[in-house]
């Protein structure tokens, strides 16, 4: 019975997973090609990695909505591996690197069996941030030149960075039409990447930005081919190189250098980076999973390792879990592993059907996608965020960043760990404390007898990245719908990595209906020895104070006076907001500028994020929240269309009313309890919706949420939102 149900849910979820897989493949195609090119490998190797990864990990893996394929982090490692191992001969170097990829896959499988899914927790988070930023800069430095049409730029990362202004000058002074066009395509592509998220047009956003770039640049070729009298200006050396017989010409690994020092170094770097990148991504994607499942990281690690081995033998890059593509998957309602599978299927179709079109993609277009990715990894905003946490985190961040750029990834991350240790020792004026207590147990967890569902966790000595795994292993044993109290009062020192992780647990528990509370840090707060804790406790302190209102806030204040409502700019929380289907895949960051009347109605500005890590976009919008006296059925109402918010309610069908054909045609209405909804939608209510402007409306039984546009509302829009909401409230509560 249970099994049958599973098959049923799987088949009903299939169409949207196929669709989501399709959208993801639109991004995976250009990214796969681009990452491979950036790695100095044949373009097709990135696609092989995505195809193998998608098929094998979707079958064998343990996570739910992740997408696998070639990763950003590996670009720097693979590029240096090919250069070093091949000693100048890129072709031969690639074959040696493939051998290293195969072996790193084997190591990943072993890591999975050793249950090293906790590997990522052994690194200080600021050091990991520094390493990611270094990878970003590494990608950006090299790809920027390629984006401007210069394929000959060579040198270390720092040299390449210094050459950037010169590169821009050269583009302007260049006489070659080919380079001018190539650079133009590159710059326009970059602009598309930058402004894509700013334009929230449904039809424009049907196709992801990287695919727009591919479509437009291929379109350019056909324009010159069929419409223009002049020949295609971009030189063939600047076009992507895909062999004619793709699957007949697969490169195979050369194990000739297995025992050399360089080779072993490459294997370690590949294993480390692909494991960490995958683990971080899985952790981040779990936070987005609309069904709130917990991934089996060890199983996933084994699957990724196995896929990497296969990919390596077939001439592909490492298979890792990638955050950007996974976020897109979630945003397009991918709900199980089949989306990953279908993304591979579509990739195969693209490669087979559009080989000649793909050959028309200019390299600068792909480079632009990577420049943007690199920038996102190393964006100044990340630095600002780290600075807010503490100056010492900035030292760790920059130490890791600079050492990684100037030496290698492994040296970089090791230095990051050492710097963190030194800083922790200085803050605590003791080094021996860390060493002495490193292996000792320091966590106690028990279920309190008095109140049934309470778990109590107490931590002794210190809690940093060194021994966080002990705390984690205890916390992971607690079902997330229970109440947990984590007591740090016996703990002398808690570092930033741990506080960040605690914050993650807090969010997970909140999402799954539990309660996660941290106590015992109050004493630390005033203690100068605990800067991390202190800063983490007040995450949003730079919210505008009441004195310093912006223009918009002043207008909102005057509206509140007109309506005789209250207005406050201060950040607050609104209960049960995350119960709305709309917020199932979106994470609420802050709620400010609240207009309220007697607690029933509230209009507020809300900031929430879509996606995770580098794919993260913070969106601010104005919404209207009405608390209802009587419970009403859960429903969502929207304009009829294809790309609407409603897909969070996908398992339900559009409820149509025969007697109101116009309403049924114009609105999409869905919800769990169809009969109750039909009852609620009286003649009056339907008439009301028909004769008023469109809003997205959702009910979570206890309250209504009215969303206008996915951005902050102007003063005028706020007024009409108030008017609409008040009238709706009157009708519904009758």
């Amino acid at each position, binding site marked *: 019975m249970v099994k049958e149900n599973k098959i049923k849910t799987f088949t009903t979820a299939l169409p949207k997973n196929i669709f989501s897989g399709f959208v993801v493949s639109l991004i995976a195609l250009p990214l796969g090609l681009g990452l491979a090119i950036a790695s100095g490998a044949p373009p097709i190797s990135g696609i092989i990695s995505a195809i193998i990864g998608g098929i094998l990990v979707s079958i064998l893996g*343990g996570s739910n909505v992740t997408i696998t394929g070639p990763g950003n982090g590996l670009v720097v490692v693979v590029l240096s591996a090919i250069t070093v191992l091949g000693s100048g001969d890129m072709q031969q170097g690639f074959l040696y690197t493939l051998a290293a990829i195969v072996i790193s896959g084997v190591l990943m499988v072993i890591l999975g069996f050793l*249950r090293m899914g906790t590997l990522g927790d052994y690194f200080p988070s600021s050091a990991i941030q520094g390493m990611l930023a270094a990878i970003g800069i590494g990608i950006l430095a090299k790809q920027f030149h390629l984006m401007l049409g210069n394929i000959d730029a060579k040198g270390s990362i720092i040299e390449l960075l210094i050459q950037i202004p010169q590169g821009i000058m050269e583009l302007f002074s260049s006489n070659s039409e080919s380079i001018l066009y190539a650079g133009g395509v590159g710059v326009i592509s970059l602009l598309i990447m930058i402004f894509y998220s700013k334009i929230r047009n449904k039809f424009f956003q049907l196709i992801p930005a990287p695919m727009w770039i591919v479509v437009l640049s291929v379109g350019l070729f056909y324009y010159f081919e069929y419409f223009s009298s002049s020949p295609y200006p971009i030189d063939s050396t600047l076009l992507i190189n895909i062999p004619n017989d793709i699957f007949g010409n697969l490169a195979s690994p050369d194990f000739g250098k297995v025992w050399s020092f360089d080779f072993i170094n490459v294997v370690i770097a590949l294993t480390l980076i692909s494991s960490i990148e995958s683990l971080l991504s899985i952790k981040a994607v779990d936070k987005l999973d609309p069904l709130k*499942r*917990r*991934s*089996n*990281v*060890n*199983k996933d690690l084994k699957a990724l390792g196995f896929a990497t081995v296969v990919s390596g033998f077939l001439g592909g890059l490492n298979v890792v879990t990638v955050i950007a593509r996974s976020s897109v998957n979630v945003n397009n309602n991918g709900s199980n592993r089949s989306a990953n599978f279908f993304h591979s299927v579509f990739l195969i179709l693209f490669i087979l059907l559009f080989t000649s079109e793909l050959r028309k993609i200019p390299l600068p277009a792909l480079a632009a996608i990577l420049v943007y990715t690199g920038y996102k990894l190393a964006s100044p905003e990340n630095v600002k965020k780290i600075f807010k946490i503490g100056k010492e985190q900035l030292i760790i961040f920059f130490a890791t960043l600079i050492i990684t750029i100037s030496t290698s990834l492994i040296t970089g991350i090791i230095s990051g760990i050492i710097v963190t240790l030194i800083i922790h020792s200085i803050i605590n004026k003791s080094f021996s404390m860390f060493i002495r207590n490193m292996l*000792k*147990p320091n*966590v*106690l*967890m*028990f*279920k309190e*007898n008095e109140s049934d569902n309470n778990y*109590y966790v*107490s931590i*002794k000595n210190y809690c940093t990245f060194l021994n966080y795994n002990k705390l984690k292993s*205890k916390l*992971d*044993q607690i*079902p997330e719908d229970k109440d947990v109290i984590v*007591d740090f009062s*016996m703990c002398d020192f808690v570092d930033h990595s741990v506080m960040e992780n605690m914050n993650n647990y807090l969010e997970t528990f909140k999402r799954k209906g539990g309660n996660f509370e941290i106590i015992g840090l109050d004493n630390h707060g005033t203690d100068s020895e605990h800067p991390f804790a202190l800063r983490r406790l007040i995450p949003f302190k730079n919210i505008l104070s009441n004195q310093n209102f912006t223009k918009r806030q002043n207008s909102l204040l005057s509206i509140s006076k007109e309506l005789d409502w209250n207005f406050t700019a201060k950040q607050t929380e609104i209960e049960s907001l995350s119960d709305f289907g709309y917020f199932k895949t979106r994470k609420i960051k802050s709620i400010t500028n609240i207009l309220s009347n007697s607690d029933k109605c509230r209009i507020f500005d809300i900031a929430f994020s879509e996606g995770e890590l580098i794919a993260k976009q913070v969106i601010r919008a104005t919404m209207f929240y009405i608390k209802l006296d009587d419970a009403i059925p859960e429903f969502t109402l929207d304009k009829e269309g294809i790309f609407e918010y409603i897909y969070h309610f996908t398992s339900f069908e559009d409820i149509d009313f025969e007697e109101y054909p116009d309403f049924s045609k114009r609105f999409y209405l869905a919800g769990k309890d169809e009969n109750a909804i039909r009852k609620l939608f009286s003649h009056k209510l339907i008439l009301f919706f028909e004769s008023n402007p469109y809003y997205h409306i959702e009910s979570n039984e206890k309250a209504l949420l009215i969303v206008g546009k996915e951005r902050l509302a102007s003063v005028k829009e706020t007024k009409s939102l108030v008017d609409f909401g008040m009238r709706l409230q009157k009708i519904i509560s009758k």
Partner: protein
Amino acid sequence: MQQFENILIGIAFSPSLKPNLYEAVRLANIFDSQLIGIHVGDKTPEKEAQLKLILDNAPTLKNELKILWQKGKPVDVILETSKNQNIDLLILGALQKEKLLSYYVGSIARKLTRNAQCSVLLLIKPSIERLPCKHIVTNGLEDIKTKETIKASFFVSKKLGCKKITIVEEINQSEVDIKINDDRSLRKATIIKERIKQREQFRVKDILSEIDTKGISVNIQSIFGKRGYSIGHYASVVRADLLIMNAPKKFNLWDRIFPHDLEYILSELPTDVLIVK
């Protein structure tokens, strides 16, 4: 029922001699026992005078203090004496870590604890004034000695006028032979844990049924965690006044390298600890 007929205290003429002696005298009176003091070293008039001065101000003993002066290695001498004199309880003072609010057992006391044939009481904060004992934590783990330990706990708490006993069952993580990977395994593990917990509580209740628990509120707490560590941590979390533990099984070199059970407690005493033989 366990009775402490002879209590032995080591006299080391350290700064904490006075509070240590006061505690010993009080305990000897509470348990109606013979207190025996032992000093390993020369018998000098100064030492005798110092001792006399302390004892004169201390509460009077029901049975007069017997003082032994012996020479040799402290550990050997004390172990030997405890055998010869049929000692039931050995009282040892713990040392405080500099500046830190944590206590540990010094090397001599540690050797004594490991090798003594009798029960051992480790005092972290001996005081001149009497501090009431309000909460005793005792172990309830599955072991042949546990029954005796629990009985001794009730005996001691009655004598000390303690009204609350918590019996802590430490359950090794390895008993839950399921690895938590995802939601399903987590659910399974939670169910298994609940089952083990029921089983353990049943076992402890079985022991309790033979004991007169009148006037004492008894609490049973299961903890999944490292054996020997969790109970100490728990005792300090609930701010227990006395922790009563089973005596360890015979130690060997292996145990020194990989500390377990008692060693965690000895390296960081959460409170006064009584080890029942």
